[in-house]
């Protein structure tokens, strides 16, 4: 059978950095082709080339017998390729029907004036919704739908454009088990109709259930393509994470002392995003927080750091009861927050590296609620040089603007900011997101070193292999509550996922 899509020897470089190297990838009619790899392995880049967002540096794409050296979004649409992104692209303020036909609303003429033919699109929409098994009126506003149903609308939208290839980027990351089953039923139906599906996911268990073939990428390289029935989960994991598993050598070990350095008791947020959470952090350990997106992990960290209002709860830091009402209080008490989005909530694009590093230590030494005090350029630059050395920040000079650095080095600058402020308790929220593999292991090593030096380390991550490799204990969240705690020895991906998803 001739493939619907054939990508040949695709290489993609971003300003000299190779994101994809010589990748071959094809999609057959009626199959689910799993695309597997760690974050940063190149899956999204490959799919963005297919949807015409990126131009490949080398290689070609063959669609319906025609060879393209690059695709435009129009080429991609013309060849009936549809992408359903992780963050859905629907417009909340429009109805389901309008969303399905946005940009190509059919018109009819009334007295010579073209008007939208709503009767027609409602009829077509009803048909499509039936195909994806969504029992809703076409005029329902998308904003009123739960996320799982929005996903069904996205699929309907792909079908509305008569898609022959549908790419699904982590479609189940925010779905319940039941909703996942529903999605799989739709996928099976689509397969029967001859649609080719690319399915991107990390969840091993569901891959075996839905996939036909699997292609594994690692660090931008093609590791292999195999029928799914020929490989075991363990084989896939080692294909995918090979090097990552070496992070095990970081030796998570249960703290030898029983000295509690940070304790949270019965913490509840005013908006109830976190309810009645209690935990202890021991000296020398890295405590991980697992759970689905929106399960309350980041919400808890915001609450600890004073960035959200508390209803009740006590915190004890190094034996001292602390009351934190704002991030300013938190910084003054020696807390640090490496947030999940460094561009938006981490660094200052208008500052050089050294100013980015000194900002919180200035806050710490300031008086009168943070406004009184003087800067000292020399001392600040010296401090920045120190952090550059300790954290091995790769830059030609600390006078460089932070935007000139790679993601990993920007993250190190942010860590340096908190070390310069002599933080005692450090919260790492998705600390390796969007960072290349080499820098990742460096960040892990830094975290371990800090824990050994007696700093408290809390780590939120959505990448289970990472949590398993780095953390001494892992707390699992669901619906704003603490659901389970595992030691590193007990923890497995399956146990964590079960705790994070099931209604025990």
């Amino acid at each position: 059978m001739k493939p619907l899509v054939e990508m040949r020897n695709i290489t993609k470089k971003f300003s000299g950095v190779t994101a994809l190297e010589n990748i071959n990838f094809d999609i057959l009619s009626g199959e689910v082709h799993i695309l597997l790899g760690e974050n940063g392995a190149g899956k999204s880049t490959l799919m963005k080339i297919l949807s015409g967002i990126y131009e490949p540096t080398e290689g070609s794409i063959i669609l319906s017998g025609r060879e393209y050296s690059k695709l435009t979004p129009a080429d991609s649409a013309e060849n009936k390729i549809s992408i359903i992104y992780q963050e859905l692209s629907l417009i909340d303020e429009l109805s389901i029907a309008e969303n399905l036909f946005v940009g190509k609303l059919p018109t009819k003429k009334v007295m010579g004036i073209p008007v939208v033919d709503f009767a027609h699109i409602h009829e077509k929409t009803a048909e499509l919704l039936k195909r994806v098994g969504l029992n809703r009126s076409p005029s329902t506003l998308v904003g009123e739908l739960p996320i799982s149903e929005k996903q069904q609308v996205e699929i309907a939208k792909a079908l509305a454009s008569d898609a022959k290839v549908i790419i699904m980027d982590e479609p189940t990351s925010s779905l319940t088990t039941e909703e996942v089953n529903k999605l799989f039923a739709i996928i099976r139906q689509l397969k029967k109709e001859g649609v080719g599906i690319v399915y991107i996911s990390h969840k091993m268990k569901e891959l075996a259930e839905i996939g036909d073939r699997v292609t594994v990428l690692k660090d931008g390289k093609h590791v292999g393509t195999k029928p799914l029935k020929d490989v075991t989960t363990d084989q896939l994991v080692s294909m995918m994470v090979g090097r990552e598993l070496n992070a095990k050598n970081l030796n998570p070990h249960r703290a030898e002392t029983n000295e509690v350095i940070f304790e949270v008791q019965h913490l509840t947020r005013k908006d109830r995003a976190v309810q009645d959470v209690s935990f202890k952090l021991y000296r020398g350990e890295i405590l991980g927080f697992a759970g689905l997106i929106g399960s309350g992990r980041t919400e808890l960290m915001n609450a600890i750091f004073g960035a959200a209002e508390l209803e009740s709860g006590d915190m004890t830091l190094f034996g001292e009861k602390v009351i934190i009402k704002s991030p300013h209080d938190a910084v003054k008490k020696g807390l640090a927050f490496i947030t999940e989005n460094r561009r938006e909530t981490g660094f200052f694009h208008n500052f050089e590296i050294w100013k980015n590093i000194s900002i919180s230590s200035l806050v710490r030494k300031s008086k009168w609620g943070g406004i009184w005090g003087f800067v000292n350029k020399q001392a600040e630059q010296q401090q920045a040089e120190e952090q550059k050395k300790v954290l091995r920040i790769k830059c030609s000079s600390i006078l460089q603007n932070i935007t000139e650095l790679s993601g990993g080095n920007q993250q190190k600058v942010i860590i340096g900011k908190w070390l310069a402020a002599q933080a005692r308790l450090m919260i790492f929220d998705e600390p390796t997101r969007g960072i290349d593999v080499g820098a990742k292991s460096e960040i892990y090593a830094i975290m371990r070193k800090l824990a050994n030096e007696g700093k408290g380390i809390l780590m939120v991550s959505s990448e289970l292999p990472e949590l398993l490799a780095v953390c001494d204990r892992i707390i699992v969240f669901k619906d704003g509550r603490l659901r389970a705690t595992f030691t590193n020895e007990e923890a497995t991906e399956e146990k964590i996922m079960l705790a994070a998803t099931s209604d025990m």
Partner: protein
Amino acid sequence: MVNRFRESWQKFGIFGIFILIVAALGILSPEYFLTTNNLTQVVLQSAITILIACGEFFTILIAGIDLSVGSVIALTGVITGKLLVSGTPVVLAILIGGILVGGLLGAVNGILVNKTGLHPFIITLGTMSIYRGITLIISDAKPIFGFPQSFKEGVAGWIFHIPIPVIIALTVALILHFITTKTILGRNIYALGGNAQSAWFSGIDIKKHQLIVFIISGICAGIAGVVMTARLGAAEPLAGVGFETFAIASAIIGGTSFFGGKGTIIGVVMGGLIIGVINNGLNILNVSTYYQQIVMGSLIIAAVTLDKLFSAKK
């Protein structure tokens, strides 16, 4: 190479432009423009612009704006005038009518911005009208005059052949330059302007800093109001109409980024001087004031375009 050019442009470009304009006017009108007398006049006329521009600078630095400065000039002028006429000692009248009232009006702006979460453009557009209305009510829309001679001489007089308004403007600029370059407050304001969210998560109290920024802008406009009243010898309820344009133009021509987080007080002072020189030069060359408005408008657009071009290449 391009990088180095951009850097030195950002540092010295404004001086280059200033010298170019002065040289051009010097060649066009050597007998009038390049006289000590005229140049002193230029600096004197720029003093009020520089005063309000220095305050405006801070509000633009946090990616905001203060449209109420012109109205603050009038209201502080009128209140200072009333205090003087009612026999309040000169120093006290200046401190209360100019600095305290100016600071309070700025604080009202800051509190409104903090409490409503609206963009400063909206808030200060509103208070611009409110402050002007209050001015007209308490002055009955009539100028106030009859001030003690010591007020006029003390504020608008001369010391060693230097106009006192110029000394006041430069002193204020110097203090604010010190705040921006040497204090934690100043650094925090740059941080807040660059990325408010990052600033908050780094431990900077955003609302407190926003409040301080608007108080600074109010105090600067208040001082300008006192200076203007002294120079005119009367408190005009319609003083300062449209002055926010000069303030914003000086800040922007002086290299302050409208997107926040970038700019210097030295640049703002140069921006104010450039506007003063251009207006003076056009006067000397007998160009109608109507054209001057066109020139200033074009300068604002050109300056922001340059800023955008240079920062986009990054």
